[in-house]
C-alpha cells in the first residue's frame, strides 16, 4: 500500500493524480476463511482490523450486502464522547475515544478526529443531579469530565442562550476530549487497512443463510455462493434480526428510524458539540460549516431509513430556543437511519446459541462513537472465543437475568 502523505500528493499532482491506486481491493470470495464478518460498516470493519492487528488473524472476509460504510456509519451526527454513567459503557466508549485519538496515524488515513469538546446541558434540577452523578462515576472510571457553570457554558459556546424562559441552563457536563470525526473516513480508513492486511472486502454480496453442523457454524450462503468459515461475526446493526434468524436465534432488538439533518453551511460560529437532552436536540458545526443536528427516534418498527416529520419539528423548536441565531438558517437535507434498539438500550457483544458464531449489535443511537472500541472488543471475543473485560457485561443473556446496563438512568440521556 502506498502511504498517504503530503509528499505523495505533491508527487501525484504532477501527473494529475492518475497514479493513485485503489484504497481497497475488490476481490472474488475464496472458498473458506478463518473468519467471516457479515457487515462492512464501521463496527464490522473495525472488528476485522483488530482481528488482524491484535490477534494476527488475517484470513478474513468482510461481506457486505451493499457498499462498505453505507449504513449508519455514514448517516450519523459523528459525535464522539465517553462520559457514560455505567462502568461497562464508560469502559468501552472510553476505549473507543482513546483509539479515535490516534486513528488517523494508525490507519494512515485522516479521519479528522476533532476533540473539540462535548457539552451536555443540564436544564432541570433533576438533570443537574444526573450529570453530577455521571461526573462522579467518570472520576472513578478514569474518564475526564467536568460539571461546569452556566457562565462557563456561555464562554465555551457564545451562541447558546442560557436564559431561556422555560429551561434556563443550570450547568453542563463537559467532556473536553470528546468531539467529532469524519464518519465516512472511519469506514474507508479501516477498509483500506484491512485490505492492505490481505483481507477480502466483498461488497454487493448478500448473506442468504447461515450453514451449521452439530450446533457449530460452517459458513454462509450468499448471493455469490457458499463461503466457508471457522468463525462468524454478525455485525449488521439494524438488520441483526434477519441474520440472527438465519442463524437460528432471536434477539432482544427492535429496528426503528432515527433522523438527522444539516443546515446550509455558514462561517464558523460554534466550535463544540452541544447536547440538550431535556428539550431533545443536539448540534455541532461541521468543518464544511453546516450545522449538524440530531433528531429523535420513531417509536415503531421501521426499515425505511426515513422518519416522521414531527420529530424534526420538535428538534428544531428546541434548538432555536437554545441557539436563537439559527432561526434564519435553512435545512439543507434530512435523512434517517435504522437503529437497533435492545431491551436496555445498550449494545450486545456476545457469543450466541450457535457455536463459533458471535454477534455485535444493539448500538442504537450511539454506534459511531463506539466503533473502534466495539471492534476491539469483538475481535477479542472472536479470537479467543470468550469475551474480554470490555465485552464481558454486554452478553445477550443479561436480559434473562435482569442484569441491565441502563444508561437512561442518569438523566434520560440519549446516546
Amino acid at each position, binding site marked *: 500500500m502506498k502511504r*498517504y502523505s*503530503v509528499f505523495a500528493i505533491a508527487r501525484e499532482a504532477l501527473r*494529475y*493524480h*492518475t497514479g493513485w491506486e*485503489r484504497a481497497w*481491493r475488490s476481490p472474488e470470495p475464496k472458498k473458506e476463511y478463518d473468519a467471516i464478518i457479515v457487515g462492512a460498516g464501521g463496527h464490522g470493519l473495525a472488528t476485522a482490523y483488530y482481528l488482524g492487528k491484535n490477534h494476527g488473524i488475517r484470513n478474513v472476509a468482510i461481506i457486505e450486502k451493499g*457498499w462498505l*460504510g453505507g449504513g449508519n456509519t*455514514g448517516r450519523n451526527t459523528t459525535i464522539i464522547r465517553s462520559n457514560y454513567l455505567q*462502568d461497562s459503557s*464508560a*469502559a468501552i466508549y472510553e476505549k473507543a475515544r482513546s483509539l479515535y485519538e490516534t486513528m488517523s*496515524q494508525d490507519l494512515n*488515513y*485522516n479521519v*479528522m*478526529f476533532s476533540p473539540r469538546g462535548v457539552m451536555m446541558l443540564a436544564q*432541570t*434540577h433533576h438533570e443537574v*443531579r444526573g450529570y453530577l452523578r455521571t461526573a*462522579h*462515576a467518570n*472520576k*472513578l*472510571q*478514569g474518564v475526564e469530565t467536568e460539571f461546569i457553570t452556566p457562565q462557563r457554558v456561555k464562554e465555551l459556546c457564545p451562541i447558546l442562550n442560557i436564559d431561556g*424562559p422555560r429551561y434556563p441552563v443550570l450547568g453542563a457536563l463537559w467532556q473536553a476530549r470528546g468531539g467529532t470525526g469524519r464518519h*465516512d*473516513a472511519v469506514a*474507508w480508513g479501516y477498509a483500506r487497512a484491512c485490505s492492505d492486511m490481505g483481507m477480502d472486502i466483498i461488497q454487493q454480496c448478500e448473506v442468504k443463510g447461515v450453514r451449521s453442523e452439530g450446533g457449530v457454524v460452517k459458513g454462509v450462503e450468499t448471493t455469490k455462493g457458499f463461503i466457508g468459515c471457522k468463525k462468524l461475526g454478525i455485525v449488521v446493526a439494524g438488520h441483526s434480526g434477519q441474520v440472527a434468524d438465519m442463524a437460528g436465534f432471536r434477539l432482544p432488538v427492535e429496528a426503528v428510524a432515527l433522523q438527522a439533518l444539516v443546515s*446550509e*453551511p*455558514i*462561517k464558523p460560529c460554534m*466550535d463544540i458539540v452541544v447536547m440538550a437532552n431535556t428539550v431533545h436536540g443536539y448540534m455541532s458545526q461541521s*468543518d*464544511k460549516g453546516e450545522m449538524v443536528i440530531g433528531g429523535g427516534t420513531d417509536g415503531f418498527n421501521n426499515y*425505511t431509513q426515513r422518519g416522521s416529520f414531527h420529530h424534526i*419539528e420538535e428538534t*428544531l*423548536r428546541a434548538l*432555536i*430556543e437554545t441557539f436563537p*441565531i439559527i*432561526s*434564519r438558517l*435553512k*435545512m*439543507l*437535507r434530512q*435523512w434517517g437511519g435504522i437503529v437497533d434498539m435492545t431491551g436496555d438500550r445498550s449494545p450486545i457483544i456476545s457469543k450466541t446459541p450457535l457455536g463459533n458464531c458471535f454477534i455485535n449489535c444493539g448500538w442504537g443511537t450511539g454506534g459511531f462513537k463506539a466503533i473502534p472500541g466495539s471492534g476491539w472488543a469483538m475481535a477479542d471475543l472472536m479470537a479467543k472465543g470468550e469475551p474480554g473485560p470490555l465485552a464481558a457485561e454486554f452478553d445477550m443473556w443479561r436480559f*434473562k*437475568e*435482569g*442484569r*441491565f446496563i*441502563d444508561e437512561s*438512568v*442518569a438523566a434520560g440521556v440519549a446516546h
Partner: protein
Amino acid sequence: MSTRLSKGGRLIDRSAAMEFTFNGKRMKGYRGDSLAAALLANDQMLVGRSFKYHRPRGIVAAGPEEPNALVNLGSGGRLEPNQRVTVTELFDGLEASSQNHWPSLEFDVGVANNYVSRFLPAGFYYKTFIHPRPFWKHVFEPIIRQSAGLGKAPKDRDADRYEQAYAFCDLLVVGGGIAGLQAALVAGKAGARVILLEQHAHWGGRAPVDGDVIDGKPAGQWVDEAVAALSAMANVTLRDRCMAAGVYDHGYVLADEKVADHTPGDGRPKHRLWRIRAGRILTATGAIERPLSFAGNDIPGVMLAASVRDYVVNWAVSPGDRTVVVTNNDDGYRTAIALKEAGLSVPAIVDARANPSGDLVAKARALGLRIEAGRGVAKVKGGKRVTSVAICLQAGEGAVIDEIACDAVAMSGGWSPVVHLWSHCGGKLVWDTVNAHFRPDPARPPLNHDGGALVYAAGSANGAMKAAEALVDATAQAQAAVAALGLKPAAAMAPVAEAVAEGPMEAVWIMPQGAPVELKSKMWLDYQNDVKVSDVQLAAREGYESVEHTKRYTTLGMATDQGKLSNINGLAVLANALNEDIPQVGTTTFRPPYTPVTLGALAGEARGEIFQPLRRTPMHAWHERNGAYFEPVGLWRRPYCFPRTGETHAQAVVREVNNTRSALGLLDASTLGKIIVKGPDAGKFLDMLYTGVMSTLPVGKCRYGLMCNEQGFLSDDGVVARIDEDTWLCHTTSGGADRIHGWMEDWLQCEWWDWKVYTANVTEQYAQVAVVGPNARKVLEKLGGMDVSKEALPFMGWADGTLGGFPCRVYRISFSGELSYEIAVPASHGAAFWEALHTAGAEFGAMPYGTEALHVMRAEKGFIMIGDETDGTVIPQDLNLDWAISKKKADFLGKRGQQRNFLASPDRWKLVGFETLDGSVIPDGSYIIAPGVNANGQGNTQGRVTSTYYSPTLKRGIAMGLLKRGPERMGEVVEFNTVTGATVKARVVDQVFYDKDGEKQNV
C-alpha cells in the same frame, strides 16, 4: 456586459422602479425582477466565490437550481445567509452582499487555493494533515473551518415570525406550469378537492418563455385562462410562492409559503409552513437543464441556455452582448433564436451533434445563425468574465479549430426531470435513453398507506418533455389519480399544443469526447463545491465505486443545490470511469427538502414561553405575583422556593423548612397525579398494579402504594384512597400521571379486557394544597365547616366536607413528617382557596413553600422520592420497602421480574442513611468507593448517594443512598468520592433523621 433591454420583459413593471444595494453599491431594478435579474441588469455577473478554491462565480441559472449566486440578504435580525438570488424577489431597499471571500469579492486571498488546486484534488484531506497528531486540532482544522462555510453566521435573534397551517385535499398538484394547471383542471372538474402549489410568484412555468402555442393561443394566454378557470372552482385552491419541500409517508406533504420574503417587516409572518395531507399527489415539477462539461465551464458568464432565455424573455435582461450557444439538443436553439430576436448577437451555435435537424435548427439557420455542428468547446477563456470560446471537434481531443470572442456562453446538456418529490418516499426511477435522463418508473411508485400509488408524475417531470406531450400526459395522469381516489374523471380532452419537430438529443457527458486529463481537471461538475470531472474519475480509480462513495469522497452534489445541476453529469462520468451503464450506477438518495427551508418555518410559532405546552396550576398566577422561582417538572412549572428580597434560594429554602416545621407551610400540590379507578373489578385490578394490597383498604382510608413495571423496577408511588365500595383514587407523582394512566389503560384494554374497570385521569380537575405544620389544624378549624380533629379524621384517613365554604376532600397524609392535611378542591376554586388559606393562616405564620423545601423535609423524614432514590434500575426491596410488597398475592406486575437472579441477589445496593463525620453535605451524585479497580481499570464502587441535603432541622448534612448490603452495615464508616479526588467520610445510619416514631404527624 449584461444589461437591461429597452423593451420586453413579461414579468417586470417598468413603472415601478426599485433601489437595492449589492456589496454597498446602489443599483436599480423593477418590480417583478428577481434579484438575479436585477443584478444582471446592473452588469453584476460576478456574485460569489466557490467553496474550496474560491474561484469567481457568476449566475448560472434562473431558478431554485442555482448553485453559485448565494448572498447574505438583509442585516441584523433579518440577515439571511445563503439566499439564492434567482428565487429572491426584488423589493425596494433590499440589501445583499456576496459571500465566502476576504477582503472583497473582486480580490479574495482565498483564491490562493485555486492556484494550488492541483494539490487539492478530491479527498486530499484524507491523505494528509495526518502528522504530527496535534496539528489537526490546533492548526489544520481551524484553517479549513475558517475557509469553509459560505454565508455569515447571524448574530441576532430572528426579527420575523413564522406560522404553520394544515390543509387537506384529495389531490395535491405540485407545479403551476402547463402540466400542473391541466392536471388541476382535470381533477377539479371531476369534483376532487384540489390544492395546486407553485413555487414562484407567477404561473405557467416554461411554456410562455418557450413560445408554445396551446389550443391556438399563446401559452401565456392559455395559462391565464386556466388560472382563471381554476380560481372559479370552489373545490380548487391555488397557492403561489409556495414550494412543496417534501413528501412524507402516507401523503403528508410539507410546503413552504414565502408570505413576506418580498415585503419584510410588514407585520405578516415571513413564511407559512403548510402541512398538507393529500389523498394522492401529482408532481408536475418540470425539469432542470443540465450543464455541459467542458474546460472553463465555471467561468462567470457561462450559463444554462434556458436560463439565458428566461432572463431575456421574463425580465428583458441580456446576460451578454455576444453569447455563444453550446448544445447537444434542439432546445438550445430556442435560446439562440430568442437572443437573436431580442437584437443580441449570437456568434455561433456549437452543437455536439454531427447532423442537427428539426424545426428549431431550421429556424436558426433561417435567421442566419452560424451553426458549428459536430463541434465542442475546447476551452472557455476568461477570469472573472468569459472573454472567448475555443472550439474543437467533439469527437476529438480538444485541438482548437477556432476561437470566438464572446462575453457569455449559453449551454444546454439536456434536461433532467425533477423527481425529488416522487423519490422522497421510495419511488423508483428508470433511465430514459432517448432523453438521457432518469424519470419516474410508473411500475414502482411510492406507496400510500393502502398500498396503492401515492405519487403520480406528469409533464416534463415525467419525461414528457415537449409541451404537446406534457399536456397529454398531465391529462392522463390526473385522470388516473382521480380514478384512484374513487372519483369519476370527467371526459377530458387534452389541450393541443402546436407540435415542434425536434431532432434527437445526443448524450454528451464531456466535451470533447477524448479530452485529456488536463482539460478534465478544468471541467466543473459541482460549481459550488468545486468538483471536477477529474475528481470523479479519481474517486472511481481509488475504489470509491458506489455512487454514495463518490458523492461523499468528492462532495459532488453535497452543496446547497444538492446536486440539481451536477448529479446526472457526475453519475455519467462515474459510469464511464467504471465502464458501466448509468442505470447500474444508480442515483444517490433524494431527501427532503426540495430546496432548503428556513429552520424558523419548520419550528413554527412555538417559541419562548410556549415553545412547549405550558401547564399551569390554578394557583400559578399567585406564585408569579409572589416572586416564585420556578423549576420545570414535566410541562408544569412548580415553585422551587419563594425567595424574599435579599434572600438566596438556599436561604429561602431554609426559612421555608423552618417555618413549616415550627408554624405553618402551604404547598401547591395540584400537579400530583389523580386517577380514579372504578368498577366491580377495580380492587382486583389495583392489586395487580400495586405491589401491595389495595382491595382490602377500607372506605375512608388511605394507603401508600408502589407500582413496578414488568421488569420489577419501581416506576411510581403514591397514596391511594378508597372512595366507596367500587371506587379508588390513586395519587401518582407529578410527572407520572399521564404515564400511569396510560399504563392502566394498557393493561385494562390489552390484557384484562374482561375486567370491569373504568379509569379517569382527574389530575387537572382538582387543585390540591398541602397544609403542613403544627398549626395546620388551627387554620382549618378557623376556616371551619368540617371536623378535622384527630378523632374525626385520623392519620391516613380522608373525609369530604367544606372548609371556609369551599367544597373539599381532605386527606390526612404527610410527606414531611408534620401534622399535615392535603386538601383537594375543584380546580375552579383553587386560586380562591389558596388565598383563603393564606388569609386565615396569617396569624398562624402561614408561608408558601416550594419543591425544594418539600424535598428537604421528606429526606429528613427518610421518605423516598421517585427519580431520586429510584432511577429505573431500583426495585422496592432495594429501598427496604418489603412491607409494601404483598407476600400473599400470587401475582402483581413486576413480581416475576423481581424473581430473576440479578434482582434477587443479597448483594444488591440497598437504602440506608448517611451522616458525614464532619457534618458537611455529601456532594450530589457521589459514589461510595470500594477497594481496588475492576478488570477495565476503573475504581470499584459499592454504593452511591441518592438524596443529599443540608438539613435546617438538624443543622448538618444528611443523606440517603444505596450501599451494598447496606442495612447490615449500620455504624460502619464509608467513603464517598468527589470530583476533586478527595473523599468524604460518612457513617451508615438509619435513613429516618427526624421524628422516627411519627409523633409529629399523628397528633
